[in-house]
C-alpha cells in the first residue's frame, strides 16, 4: 500500500462515562473508497466529527499526507482538503440553495449557480439553485449537501449514510460519481450500515463496534453475512417467514382521493387509491417529498377532510374522512409517525407519560385518573419486549437515542393491539439488529391478522416486509405491485416517474 492520505493512531474520545471511540487506528489510502461500517451508536459519527474537526480527540494522533494533523475546527479541515456531507444540521432552510453553498464556497452568486447546474448535470444531482431550501424534499436537500461538498474540491470526502434517501437508480448514479471522484484523485470515507452497498462500491472497510475497531477488511472478499457478524458481534436474526393468506376484510380503503393542502409548499395528492386488508402488509415506496407526509397526515387524522369530501377514506368499513385522530384511534387504528420527537413522543416528558399519550384507553386510567402503577408496568413491558436501552421508565424521551426511541414508539403502538397499524419509516436510524427484530414483529402481527401499512424509503425493507407495494411519485400512487412478482428496478422506475401509469393493473 502507498503512504496513506490520512492516518489515525490511538484516537480516543469520551463523553462523560461513555467511551465513544477507543484506541482507533485507521489508514485511508489515496484514491480509495473506504467504508466505515457499524451500527448506530458504534461510534462512526464521533470518529467522523474528530476527523472533520467538529470535536477534538482526548488522546491519539493523526497525520495527513505524512504531516501531523491537528484540527481545531471544520474550517481548518476544509482548508486541508477534507470535506464532509452531513446527514443533519447543515443546511439553512430560509436561504436559497446557492446562498447555502456560498457560505462555504467563495465566488459570485451567478458563477456558483452555474457551477451547481453543471455538477447537477454531470452527476445527476439536479436541483434549482434559486429554490429556498425549506421548499425542497429531503432527497433534494441531500443533493444540495453533496454538491456543496463537491464544490470545495476536497481530497478526502466524508459521506454520512449518503444513500438513505435515494432511489436505486440514483444510488447507482451516485456510486458512479464516487468512482469518478476516486479516479480523479479523491479519497472517500463512506459511512454506512448497508452491507450490499459497501460491497458494491468500497475498496476497504473498517468495522466499528462499541467504539472499537473490530476489523479492517476488503469488503469484496466477504459476503454480507460475514460483515454483519463483525458489525453486530453475532449472527443476524432470520427474517420471519410470511404465511400466505387469502385476502381478509378491508381494514383501510382510500378511494380516488384528491387533496390540495393549505401549505403552499406541500405536495398536492391526486387520485389516491389503496386498500389494506387484514393479514396483509402494504408498503408505500417513494423518494421522500413526493407526498408521503401529506398522505400520512390524511390517514392518521391530523388532516381532516372537509365535509363535502365524504366516502374517500374508510377504516374498518367506516367513513372516517371527517373524524379526528383520536376518533380514528378509537376504531382500532394506531400510528407511528416519521418524526419521533414532537409527533411520536414529547421529548421533555418521561417514557411513562409518553406511553399514556396513546395507550391511556387500554386500561391505564382508573375513574379518569392516571393509574400510575399500571402505566409504569405498561412502559416497562414495552422497554423489555422491544429492547429499549434506557436507564428506566422515568427517563425523558428526548434523552433516548433516535433508534431506541423508535423502538419504544413502535412497541407502544403495537402493544395497543390495533386492527390497523400504520408505520412511517419503521426502522429509520435503528441499528440492524433491532431493525430486524421490529420487522419480524410486524410480520408476526400480519400473520395474526393485523392490517399494516408501511411507508418507507428503504426498498430492501419493503421487499422483506410487504405483500404488495405501491409507489408514490409527485402526489400520485402507482397501482399495487405484488412483491413476489416485482423487482427493485421496476419499483425504481415508478419512483422516478419513468413508468407510464397507463397500463393499470386491477387491484
Amino acid at each position, binding site marked *: 500500500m502507498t503512504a496513506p492520505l490520512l492516518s489515525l493512531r490511538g484516537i480516543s474520545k469520551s463523553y462523560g462515562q461513555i467511551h465513544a471511540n477507543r484506541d482507533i487506528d485507521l489508514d485511508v489510502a489515496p484514491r480509495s473508497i473506504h467504508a466505515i461500517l457499524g451500527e448506530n451508536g458504534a461510534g462512526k459519527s464521533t470518529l467522523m466529527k474528530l476527523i472533520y474537526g467538529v470535536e477534538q480527540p482526548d488522546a491519539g494522533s493523526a497525520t495527513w499526507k505524512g504531516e501531523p494533523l491537528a484540527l481545531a475546527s*471544520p*474550517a481548518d479541515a476544509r482548508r486541508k482538503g477534507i470535506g464532509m456531507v452531513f446527514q443533519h444540521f447543515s443546511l439553512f432552510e430560509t436561504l436559497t440553495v446557492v446562498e447555502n453553498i*456560498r457560505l462555504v464556497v467563495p465566488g459570485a452568486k451567478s458563477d456558483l449557480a452555474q457551477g451547481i447546474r453543471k455538477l447537477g448535470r454531470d452527476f445527476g444531482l439536479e436541483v434549482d439553485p434559486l429554490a429556498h431550501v425549506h421548499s425542497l424534499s429531503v432527497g433534494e436537500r441531500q443533493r444540495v449537501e453533496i454538491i456543496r461538498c463537491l464544490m470545495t474540491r476536497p481530497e478526502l470526502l466524508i459521506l454520512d449514510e449518503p444513500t438513505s434517501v435515494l432511489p436505486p437508480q440514483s444510488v447507482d448514479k451516485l456510486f458512479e460519481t464516487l468512482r469518478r471522484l476516486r479516479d480523479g484523485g479523491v479519497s472517500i470515507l463512506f459511512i454506512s450500515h448497508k452491507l450490499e452497498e459497501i460491497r458494491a462500491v468500497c475498496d476497504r472497510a473498517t468495522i466499528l463496534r462499541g467504539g472499537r475497531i473490530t476489523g479492517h477488511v476488503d469488503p469484496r472478499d466477504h459476503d454480507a453475512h460475514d460483515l454483519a457478524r463483525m458489525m453486530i458481534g453475532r449472527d443476524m436474526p432470520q427474517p420471519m417467514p410470511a404465511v400466505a393468506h387469502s385476502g381478509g376484510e378491508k381494514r383501510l380503503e382510500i378511494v380516488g382521493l384528491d387533496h390540495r393542502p393549505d401549505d403552499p409548499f406541500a405536495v398536492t395528492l391526486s387520485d389516491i387509491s389503496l386498500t389494506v386488508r387484514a393479514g396483509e402488509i402494504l408498503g408505500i415506496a417513494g423518494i421522500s417529498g413526493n407526498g408521503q407526509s401529506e398522505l400520512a397526515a390524511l390517514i392518521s387524522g391530523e388532516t381532516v377532510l372537509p365535509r363535502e369530501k365524504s366516502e374517500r377514506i374508510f377504516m374498518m368499513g367506516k367513513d372516517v374522512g371527517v373524524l379526528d385522530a383520536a376518533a380514528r384511534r378509537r376504531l382500532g387504528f394506531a400510528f407511528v409517525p416519521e418524526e419521533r420527537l414532537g409527533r411520536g413522543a414529547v421529548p421533555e416528558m418521561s417514557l411513562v407519560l409518553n406511553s399514556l399519550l396513546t395507550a391511556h384507553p387500554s386500561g391505564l386510567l382508573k375513574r379518569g385518573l392516571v393509574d400510575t402503577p399500571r402505566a409504569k408496568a405498561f412502559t416497562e413491558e414495552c422497554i423489555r419486549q422491544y429492547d429499549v436501552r434506557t436507564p428506566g421508565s422515568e427517563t425523558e424521551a428526548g434523552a433516548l437515542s433516535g433508534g431506541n426511541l423508535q423502538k419504544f414508539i413502535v412497541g407502544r403502538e403495537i402493544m395497543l393491539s390495533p386492527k390497523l397499524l400504520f408505520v412511517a419509516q419503521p426502522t429509520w436510524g435503528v441499528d440492524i439488529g433491532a431493525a430486524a427484530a421490529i420487522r419480524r414483529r410486524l410480520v408476526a402481527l400480519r400473520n395474526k391478522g393485523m392490517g399494516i401499512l408501511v411507508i418507507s424509503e428503504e426498498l430492501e425493507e419493503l421487499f422483506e416486509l410487504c405483500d404488495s407495494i405501491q409507489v408514490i411519485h409527485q402526489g400520485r400512487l402507482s397501482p399495487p405491485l405484488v412483491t413476489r412478482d416485482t423487482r427493485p428496478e421496476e419499483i425504481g422506475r415508478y419512483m422516478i416517474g419513468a413508468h407510464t401509469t397507463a397500463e393499470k393493473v386491477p387491484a
Partner: protein
Amino acid sequence: MNALEFIVAGMLAAATPFLLAALGEMVAERAGVLNLGVEGLMALGAIIAFIIVYHGGGHLLGFLAAGLASAALSLVFAVIALGFRANQVAVGLAIGILGQGLSALFGKTYESLTVKGLPKLSLPWLSDIPVIGGLFAQDVVVWLSLAATVAIWAVFAYTKTGLVVRAVGENPKAAHALGYPVIAVRFAAVAFGGVLAGFAGAYAAVVYTPLWADGMIAGRGWIAIALVVFGTWLTSRIFLGACLFGAVSLASLAAQATGLDVSSQLLSSLPYIVTIIVLGIISSNRRLLKLNGVASLGEPFEQ
C-alpha cells in the same frame, strides 16, 4: 402650513429614532439574539450625546460618544447573555433598566436645559414642490439614516457578511459546523445594534427635541422592538413601519393643534394602539412569520 404638509415634512425626522433603533435590533435578532434593552440603550445614548453637545463638544462627537456608550452597555448584555448563556429576555430587561437608570443619574443636573438642533439640508428644486416639498428638507442625520437603511438592506441582500449573520441566526449549530464563529458574529451583531440604538437616542435628544427631560425616550425603544416583528425582519418593511409611526405620532400632534374634539391622551396613545393592532394582524399570518422569522431567536448557543 396645514396638517398634511406638517406631517409630510416631519415624518422622516419623527421616524428616525424608531428607524435607527429598529434596524439595530433587526441585525441583532437576525443573528439570533433578542436584546430587549433597546429602551435603556437609547436612553443612555441620549444623555451622553446631550451632555457633550451641551458642553460644546458638537453633534458629531456627541453622536460618536453616544454610539460608543450604548455599544459598551450592549456588550455587557452580550457577555452575560452570550458568554454565560443567561436567559436573553431577563438580561435584556435588566440592561434596559440599567440604561434608563444611568440616563436619569447623568441627566439629573441637565433637566429642562436645551441645546441647539441641526439645520435642515434641502434638496434643490425638490424641496420647492408644494405639499410634499417638506419631505426633501431634512437634517443631515436623517439623510445618513436613509443611506444606512439602504446599506443594511444591501448587506443582507447581496453580501456574504449578511448571509453569515442570517445563517448564524437560523441554525447556529450548522453555522458552527461550517466553521463560522457563532458567538463572535452574535457579539458583533449586538454591538452594532447598540451603536444604532445610541445614535437613535442621540437623535431624539439633541436633534429632534433638543431639550433634556428624564424619560424622554418614552417607549420608543419598545416600539422599535415591535417594529422588527412588524417588519418581519425585513429592512424595507421596517423602514415603512418607522415612517408610519413617525406619521402617526405627528398626526396626533396635528390633530391636537387643529383643536379636534378628541381627548389628547387618546391621540398621544395612538402610536401604541397602532403597534398592538398591527402586531396582531401580522402575527395572525403564520406563513409570513415562518418564512421570515429567525429560527434560533433568543436561544443560547452551546457548542
